């Protein structure tokens, strides 16, 4: 953690800054509001951990997020609620068109979910604790919630797989770096190249985003709401969104046995790992398949070479397959092929589309508008890959409670999920959805999406077809993780 605290650190929930890696125990509580007044007063005094609190080691941390349903049940004025993002208001499962875009169809459809299929629960409490501290705290919290107007609809347990996710890969290796101190102005020359330092307005409402603009959020008449900060872009109004973020939660069940058995069956048990690594796009250790470059990348710390790379020199996907999971999740492209090294004439020619070579290389551009901060936690039993391949391995019932934070659900989370992960046409491909998360359903006219290809050095693709689904969505929702002042205001 860098030394200088962001401005208003005591107003931002700590999850924006930290994944609480030392707090290895966690539970997520999905709550319904039974009694508005009691729920408001409990939330009003809830000891939410802020970024400022991170100056000292915390043995526990509490984060609070509210869904659109929750805002209504808390009695927030309809006009205020309606000023939040349309996708937040509609909810993750609230619209079939959205479900289609997210790939939440077939066995991933909301009708099959354990929770959230008919709408978000009202409130999401995220409890993090150091080893041995969660159980007692959680149980007293649940009791208190029951006495203060809440029903605990469901408890999402997590387990500590150290830094691995259930398939056995080091997770959370690559994250955007939030530009807390406005060190860069987005849209400049440097953005022609890939960069990892991203405007804080991409994650927190109330600040300028990558377009240099302010994402819509509820702004209230200034005089009525002294408790809230003023809006930066419209100082006569109070900003209910400021220092808040949208939180996306998805319960993803991972078929660890199916994944490793498939890899072993296709590649043999010794080469299974390298096939799995090609599908993921990183080694199990988290090291990239691409050799890191020497030149620095803005926003990639010097001590993390595992993120100092782009796919520019691997445009065909001979080193990292075009359809590999991490290449989809972040294609690491700048605003223009060729980057900032080229002269003005070359840039103009590219802008006008006169470079024939760009037809393929310019399909996916401007990654900086589609970044998310991932904060997920694993659940279930950890099984090493060798054990998972064995026929007598019991089902570890494991997966990921995927969590991400962003300022514009539609342009960030939904775009990544739709255009990059789920699309069978990502990067100019034909019939490959994400090798890990794809739902494998054919397109309406019958075209397959359940393939994956690996290029040999001579250019021939080694094709894998009829890959089974390894990940199933079992729940999900959109929440708002408010700033502390906003939370107090909403519950006063």
């Amino acid at each position: 953690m860098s030394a200088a605290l962001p401005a208003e650190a005591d107003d931002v929930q700590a999850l924006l800054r930290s994944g609480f890696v030392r707090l290895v125990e966690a539970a997520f509580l999905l709550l319904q509001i039974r009694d508005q007044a009691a729920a408001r007063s409990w939330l009003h005094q809830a000891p939410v951990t802020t970024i400022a609190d991170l100056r000292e080691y915390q043995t526990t941390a509490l984060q609070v997020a509210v869904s659109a349903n929750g805002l209504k049940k808390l009695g927030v004025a309809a006009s205020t609620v309606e000023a939040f993002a349309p996708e937040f208001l509609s909810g993750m499962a609230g619209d079939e068109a959205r479900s289609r875009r997210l790939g939440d169809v077939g066995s991933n459809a909301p009708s099959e979910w354990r929770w959230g299929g008919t709408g978000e629960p009202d409130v999401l409490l995220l409890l993090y604790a150091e080893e041995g501290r969660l159980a007692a705290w959680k149980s007293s919290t649940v009791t208190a919630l029951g006495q203060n107007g809440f029903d605990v609809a469901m408890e999402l347990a997590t387990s500590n797989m150290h830094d691995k996710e259930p398939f056995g890969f080091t997770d959370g290796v690559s994250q955007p770096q939030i530009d807390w101190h406005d060190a860069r102005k987005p849209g400049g020359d440097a953005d022609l190249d890939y960069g990892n330092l991203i405007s804080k307005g991409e994650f927190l409402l109330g600040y300028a985003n990558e377009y240099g603009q302010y994402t819509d959020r509820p702004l209230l008449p200034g005089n009525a709401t002294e408790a809230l900060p003023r809006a930066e872009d419209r100082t006569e109004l109070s900003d209910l969104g400021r220092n808040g973020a949208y939180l996306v939660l998805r319960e993803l069940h991972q078929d660890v046995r199916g994944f490793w058995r498939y890899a072993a069956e296709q590649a043999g048990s010794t080469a299974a790992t390298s096939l799995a690594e090609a599908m993921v796009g990183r080694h199990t250790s988290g090291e990239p398949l691409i050799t890191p470059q020497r030149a620095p990348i803005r926003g990639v710390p010097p001590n993390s070479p595992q993120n100092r790379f782009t796919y520019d020199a691997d445009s065909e996907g001979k080193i990292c397959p075009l359809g590999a999971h991490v290449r989809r999740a972040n294609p690491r492209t700048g605003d223009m092929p060729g980057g900032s090294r080229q002269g003005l004439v070359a840039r103009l020619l590219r802008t006008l589309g006169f470079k024939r070579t760009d037809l393929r290389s310019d399909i996916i551009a401007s990654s900086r508008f589609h970044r998310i901060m991932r904060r997920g936690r694993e659940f279930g039993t950890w099984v090493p890959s060798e054990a998972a391949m064995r026929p007598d391995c019991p089902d570890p019932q494991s997966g990921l409670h995927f969590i991400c934070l962003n300022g514009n659900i539609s342009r960030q989370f939904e775009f990544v999920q739709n255009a990059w992960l789920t699309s069978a046409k990502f990067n100019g491909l034909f019939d490959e959805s994400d090798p890990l998360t794809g739902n494998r359903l054919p397109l309406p006219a019958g075209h397959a999406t359940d393939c994956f290809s690996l290029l040999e050095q001579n250019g021939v693709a080694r094709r894998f077809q009829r890959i089974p689904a390894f990940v199933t969505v079992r729940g999900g929702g959109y929440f708002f993780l408010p700033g502390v002042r906003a939370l107090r205001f909403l519950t006063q």
Partner: protein
Amino acid sequence: MTPQSTFMVAAPIRLTLEGQLRVLLDSMNKAPGRVDADNALLPFAHYDRLHVARFVILRDETLGDLAAYGTSFPNAPVWLAFLGDCDGAADDMLREFADTAGAEIRRIFAHCEDPPGTDILAWMRRHSVQPAAQYVNWRGRTVQQIKQEAALHDFLRDCLGRTPALASRRALEIRDHLVGEVARARSALPAPTPRQRVWLFWVAIGLAAVPLVPILLMFSPVLLLLLWQLRVRERNDPVITPRPSAAHLGATSRLEDYDVSNPFSAFGSVKPGRFRLCTLLLVFRALELSTRFIYIRGRLARVGTIHFARWAFMDDRRRLLFASNYDGSLDSYMDDFINKVAFGLNLVFSNGIGWPRTSFLIFGGAGYEQEFKNYLHRHEVPTQVWYKAYPGLTASNLATNTEIREGLQRKHMTEAQAQRWLALI
């Protein structure tokens, strides 16, 4: 060379029949947003020259915006438009429709004012609307060629799947093998798309530019005056970009994102006055030239996801229709627009009422992300019936298939070229 053409037939709907018409149009779909390509009214799939087609009801929900200019458009028609893109001449396509489905088309347009009589072809000709500008992703590539190239790609993939020990062989050797397989299968290879003589265009531009310089110099005071006029307008024109209602968003999105491509239909008013209209006419002229001679193989500037697009004036140039066929979801389409061709959008659409504020006709505008997205969503009208002859294939896929076929037909290749070619398969 068979250039593609575009057709569009439009007539004002008799408002009392609009409900019936919607039901009738819905009957051409298996489900909302999913056309039945063999439907009883107009079985699109039976027309092997037809790339894309749609029936769209142009009900303009943004007429109220005219009030910002102190004007209105009372009794503005609600149009029914039937439009599409085909190989060969548009009139031939209309004739084929009239010959094979004349009665059915008459039944559809019977819901309009001045309904068609017995001579449906003459009626369609009378109600044809010529586009102000149009875009074709790949000039001269026919539906037949697209289908043959797709089949060729499948065939080559199957061949590779049957060929042993591929990884250890040289790319050229594998290519020779594939060339032989194709010859043995005697699969009729599509003819290559003849290249247009684009260089002629550039020579013409160069020749035209020489006398243009003194003329421009002579008229520079006039140009400065026009620029000043433009800036005055850009500073004062009202921006109208409220967030569209959830109901409106739902009405359009429920029809989208079934296949890999979507239709987009947007309708709105041109800013009143001669200045904006002339600007628009000039821009369309330039656009039409560029899409005829420059952007003819795979891309419109940096955007490679549009199959066909058109801009058409309606109501004596008071309103404008934009209709396109694009890959991906609307949100990614709009992001592509902002990040790659905001300048191009501004050139056209800043002459439409309510567009986000531009400067010098190319800056700003679509660069205001949320205002732009609100504007587009708000002007989008649901496309009741939409057909694309090659579902499941994106423009990028089509370009790859063409490249594969061209590579197969090339006489010579180096090992490196053969490797890149194999990688496409």
